[in-house]
């Protein structure tokens, strides 16, 4: 059974039609990458999956169950974690409190869960030293690592990553890539990734290419030809 099954999805911002009959499937343990130039609807698709935007028509299924109409916090509790573009760390909360908020998606939420899995410090050692700093005072790369760590603490079944390497220095990009690969290998979760960085795109198992709000190509990333890359990845 697919972790995420999207069928015939149409979504609008006000009057403008953004997503047009989008189909997409993410299988267990799979890393799927969405590619496409700016403004083709990749971020909108992720927002519709987490529930920040409600679709006009089409179906969304998580592990065979419909999640259409549920608010984001209920989707989070069912196993979707979202790392948005721009990280969206809660700025005035400490790094520890930000991490604790990741536990909200677990059964019982923060009232029952207080344990921060040390795995996240193994993946992102830099966070451990900053636990009592305010989240908003971290650098962009550190915030990105915090956002991914926070998402992982909820033990999601599907992780949505929106341009995790955008505007981040190359050494941290490699850290993040390595961490994401390790997460998939050790926990078996599925990842739906929006990415412009070709090196990172190549790590995925499967790609979907978007154009003008619709899917125009898909296949194993191993077969991602130079021609497709030139057409769909912005330079």
């Amino acid at each position, binding site marked *: 059974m697919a972790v995420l099954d999207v069928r015939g999805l149409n979504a609008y911002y006000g009057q403008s039609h953004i997503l047009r009959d989008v189909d997409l499937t993410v299988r267990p343990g799979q890393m799927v990458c969405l590619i496409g130039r700016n403004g083709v609807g990749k971020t909108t698709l992720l927002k519709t999956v*987490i529930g*920040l935007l409600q679709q006009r028509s089409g179906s969304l299924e998580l592990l065979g169950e419909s999640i259409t109409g549920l608010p984001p*916090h209920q989707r*989070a509790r069912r196993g979707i974690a979202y790392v*948005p573009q721009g990280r969206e760390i809660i*700025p*005035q*909360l400490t790094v520890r409190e930000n991490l604790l*908020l990741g536990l*909200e998606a677990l059964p019982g939420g923060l009232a029952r869960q207080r344990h921060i899995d040390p795995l996240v410090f193994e993946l992102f050692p830099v966070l451990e030293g900053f636990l009592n700093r305010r989240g908003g005072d971290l650098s962009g790369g550190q915030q990105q690592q915090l956002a991914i760590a926070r998402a992982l603490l909820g033990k999601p079944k599907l992780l949505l990553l929106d341009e995790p390497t955008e505007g981040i220095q190359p050494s941290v990009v490699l850290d993040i890539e390595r961490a994401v690969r390790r997460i998939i290998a050790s926990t078996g979760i599925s990842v739906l990734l929006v990415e412009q960085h070709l090196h990172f795109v190549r790590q995925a198992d499967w790609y979907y290419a978007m154009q003008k709000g619709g899917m125009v190509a898909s296949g194993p990333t191993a077969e991602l030809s130079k021609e497709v890359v030139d057409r769909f990845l912005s330079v």
Partner: protein
Amino acid sequence: MNLFYDTLFNGLAIGSVLVLAALGLAVVFGLMGVINMAHGELMMLGAYTTFVVQNVFKAVLPESVFPIYILVAIPFAFLVSGLAGLLLEKTVVRRLYGRPLETLLATWGVSLILQQFVRSVSSAFAIGLLLAVAIGLFLPRLLVRVQLAPRWAGLKGTISWISAGLVGIGVASLLGEERSLDQPWFSARNLDVTAPSWLRGSIELGGVTMPTARLFIIALTILALWGVTWFLQKSVWGIRIRAVTQNRSMSDCLGIPTETVDALTFLIGSGLAGVAGVAVTLLGSVGPNLGGNYIVDCFMVVVLGGVGKLLGTVLAALGIGVISYVVGSGSLLLIWPAMPAGLNELITFFATTSMAKVLVFALIVLFLQVRPAGLFPPKGRMVEA
């Protein structure tokens, strides 16, 4: 010099009431971006609750326990105002989310309703109202089996509420035939709450006379501040409230039930207004218009204090309270009789309650020209982001 400290102390007590009153407003405004115009009326409900608790103690309980009625009134006032606020959030504010102007207007309407409510509530009125609410809430459940065409499904609720209203009005007017049930609970004139004897004296400390009632208000304010700070910083719901205040949509995506957070915050903010109402009964008489006197000052506090910082609220409230009291009471002239002539006339000009308010507003306007974001604007890296 003692006169100076006396004046300062009294100003501090007035400021403390303002802290209590504005605290709830600031917390709700920070979280939901909503200005609740009915906040002052929630204070008034707290004051009336104190009056009712006092009367119950007088009528039912032995005289020896009467002095503690004010301590009992505090949790009751918190509950009454808090529940009224919760009802307001669920029925009005939630439906207007993201529309601040409509919210302003709607909550102002609610404030008028609440004012008239305390004027005209009688036993018959209360029974009718309770009956109407009960029917309105439960009739749709009974009607579940009645099948309507989908396009008429929304009518079920409307019909229930209309019939509930009619039944309520009918019952109320029938019961109103009986004189004793038609008697309003509170007269339209102002009521006086008798402070218990231990709050009527005063304490002399180093030559400064401190009325115990005002000391009590200051202690209550400190306690409330400590409670709110502890709740926001340490409790699970406090972390959730702070997270939603700073980034609503991301908090939602993390699994925080934002609607519950909104309702809880509104309950707490309104409950604090109720506690402020208890404090107000110690300063003067209680009337339906009590809320209106405070709401404008509370807004000033929220604007001046800046959003999301309790310390800003506290300093702004104390500042406004102290300045308007010290200037308005005219005691500056008594403290410093040898004032130069020009200054002397200026101070006399502002030495009435209403002119002191004019001065405070003028000062606030000037201050906001220099620091538009209030006393404590957000700082640091995240401001640029």
